[in-house]
C-alpha cells in the first residue's frame, strides 16, 4: 500500500462536495471537497505500489482539462488509469448536476 500526495495550482473553486465510486477490486472512490486554498491538494491511498509517475500523468491531464480548485481524496484498489479518469470525470459531471 502506498500513500501519495500531489498539488496543482488551479483557479476554479468547486461549490459542493462530491463522492463517486467504490473501493472494489480494480476500482476506486473519489471525494471532492471545496477548499479555500488557491490550489488543489490530492491525497491518494493505493493498493498498487510503484505507479507514482502514472498517477502524476493522469492528474496532469485531468487538471489540464478541468482546472478546478478542490481538496481531493482517492482510495484506490488497483484500478487502471482509464478507470481513474472515468471516476474523476464522473465526479465533474456530478458537480454540474443540480440534483
Amino acid at each position, binding site marked *: *500500500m502506498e500513500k501519495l500526495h500531489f498539488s496543482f495550482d488551479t483557479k476554479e473553486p468547486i461549490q459542493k462536495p462530491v463522492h463517486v465510486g467504490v473501493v472494489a477490486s480494480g476500482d476506486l472512490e473519489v471525494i471532492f471537497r471545496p477548499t479555500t486554498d488557491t490550489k488543489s491538494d490530492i491525497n491518494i491511498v*493505493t493498493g498498487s505500489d510503484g505507479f507514482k509517475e502514472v498517477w502524476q500523468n493522469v492528474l496532469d491531464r485531468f487538471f489540464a482539462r478541468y482546472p478546478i480548485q478542490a481538496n481531493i481524496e482517492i482510495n484506490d484498489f488497483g484500478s487502471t488509469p482509464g478507470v481513474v479518469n472515468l471516476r474523476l470525470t464522473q465526479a465533474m459531471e456530478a458537480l454540474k448536476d443540480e440534483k
Partner: protein
Amino acid sequence: MKNSFVELHARERAEALLDDDVRELVGPLDNMISPHLEPQGIVPESDDGVVLMRGTINGKSALVISIEGKFQGGGIGEVSGAKIVAALEKALEDNQAGKTIYPVLVLDTGGVRLQEANYGLLSISEIQNAVIALKKFVPVIGLVPGRVGSFGGMSITASILSYLIATKKARIALNGPEVIEQEAGVREFDSSDKDLIWNTLGTKQRLATGLVDEVVEDTVDNIKKSVSDAIDAKKDAHRTENIDFYLSLLDKLDLSKKLDIDGYRKLYSEVKSEKHVIDDAVGSNTPGTKSRGRVWFEKLTGIKNAKSSVSTVLHAEKDGKEYVAIVPDADNKFPRVRDGEVGLEEGFAVASIVNKVVADDADKDIKRPIIMVVDVPSQAYGYQEELIGIHVALGSSAAAYAKARQAGHPVIAFIPGDAVSGGFLAHGLQSNRLIALDDTSITIQAMSKASAARITQRTIAELEEATKHVPAMAYDIDNYEKLGALYKLVKGIGSYDATDENVAKINSIIDEAIQTTVGKPADLHFRYETPIAIESGRKATNAVRKAVFEQWNA
C-alpha cells in the same frame, strides 16, 4: 434484467429502496474510516463499507442499512459494525417513543472482516441484540440480493431478522465451502463443485427448507414492493423460535449415511414438531470427555461426572443461578461435533433451556441469573450442518440469551476455555458481563489461523505479523482485554485449576458481576463504557456512535 438491483452498489441500493427524499448518516464525507486497515496495508473506504440512509418506503418512515459487498467482501469491522448498531439503537429509541420507523438490512456480506476479527464478532453480537429489541415494536426485514450473499456471523443475524427476502443470485450459509474444506477436508465439502455449492446454499434450496421466506426477481421495483409489502403485513417468520421442530428433526436424522439435498427436503417436509424439555444435568460415575468447560461446570454446580439427555449440553441450577455449558463428546453421533464445537443440536438445545428459564420466571420480579460456562473451540464445520442451516441453530441460542437478558435475567459469561467465532456468538457474546481466566491456552478469535490465512490469501506467518499491529486480530486473551469488552480478567487461576478455593473465588466474582447489572439497562453498552474501551479499545466505536446519534435527526 433491466433495472437490476443486484448490479447496484450499496448506496444506490439504499436510494432504490427509499422514496425520493433521502438522507445519509455518517456518509463518505464524514470520512469515518477503519483505523485498523492501513496498518495492515489494506486500502480503507470512506464509509467503511456500510451505508446508513433514512427516508420513506412508500410513505413509511424507514432506515436502510446497506452493506457494500464489493469492499473487503462486505466484512464487518469495528467502524462498519458500530454504524449499524448505533443506527439500530436510534431506531429502537424512536419506536419506543412511538415514532415508528422500520429498519431494513441489505446483507451482502462474508460476515466478520477477518482483518478486524474480534471487533467484527463483538459488533455482530451487538447488532443481534439491537434486532431482538426492535422486533418487539416493528418487523426487521432482511434482504439478501447477492453476488456475495450472506455468510458467517451475519447469517446468524439473518436468521434472527423477522423476514428474509432474496434473489436467486444469492447464497446463504454460516461457513463458506472453502472454510469447511479447509477445516474438514474435501470429502466433507468439495469447494470446487459449483453445482453442489449452489444447489445446497442457493436461495432456491433455502426457500424450500425455511431458511429464506421469499425469492424475488432481481429488479428494483419487485424488490421494493416485496420489502414494502412485508412491512405492511408485519411479517415475522419466527425462524429462531422453531426449536422443538428442529430438535424433532434432529431426532429423526439418519446419521448412518451422508445427508443429501433430496433426502433433507423429504425429511424437512415430514417432521412433526414435538415438545422437547432438556432436564437438569445429573451426576454419574462415568466421566464425560474432558474439557475446561466441563471441569468448571461440574465444580460450579457440584454435579460429579455430569451428564444430560443431550450429551454435549449441560445445565443445572445452583444457589438460584442457572449454569449452562457446552462440552465435547468424543463419540458424539454427529461426526463433526466431537471436540466441543457448537453444532445444530447444541444451538437448539441451549435455546430450549434458556427459553424455559425465561418462561418459568416470566411472572417473577427477580429473574434468575444465567451463567454461561464458555469453552467452545468453534462452530461445527460440516456439510449437513450447512444443508440444514446451522446459522439458525446458533441464531436460536443467541436470540434466547438476548431475550433472557432483555427480560431482566443477568447473563454472565465465564470463559475458562476457548471462545471462537460462531460458537462464541451463540454461547458467550450475548452476555452483558464477560469474565475470563488469564491463561495463554485460551483462544478468542473469529477463525482458525489456517482458514483465516487461506481466506485472506496470506501465509500464517503474515497473519501472525499482522496480529502484532491490530489487537483485534490476535488470538490470545491478553490482547483481547485491550478491546475493553471484559468485565474482569481473572489472574492467577489456570483454566484447569478448578480447586475449591478457585471455584469460590470465581463464584464471588460472578455474584459481584450480577450485582453490577442490577438496576442497569439490559443492553450491551457496558462494553463501550469500561475504562479500557473509552481510552483505546472502543475509541472508534464511541466516535461513530456519537456521530450517528448527532446526525440521526436532521
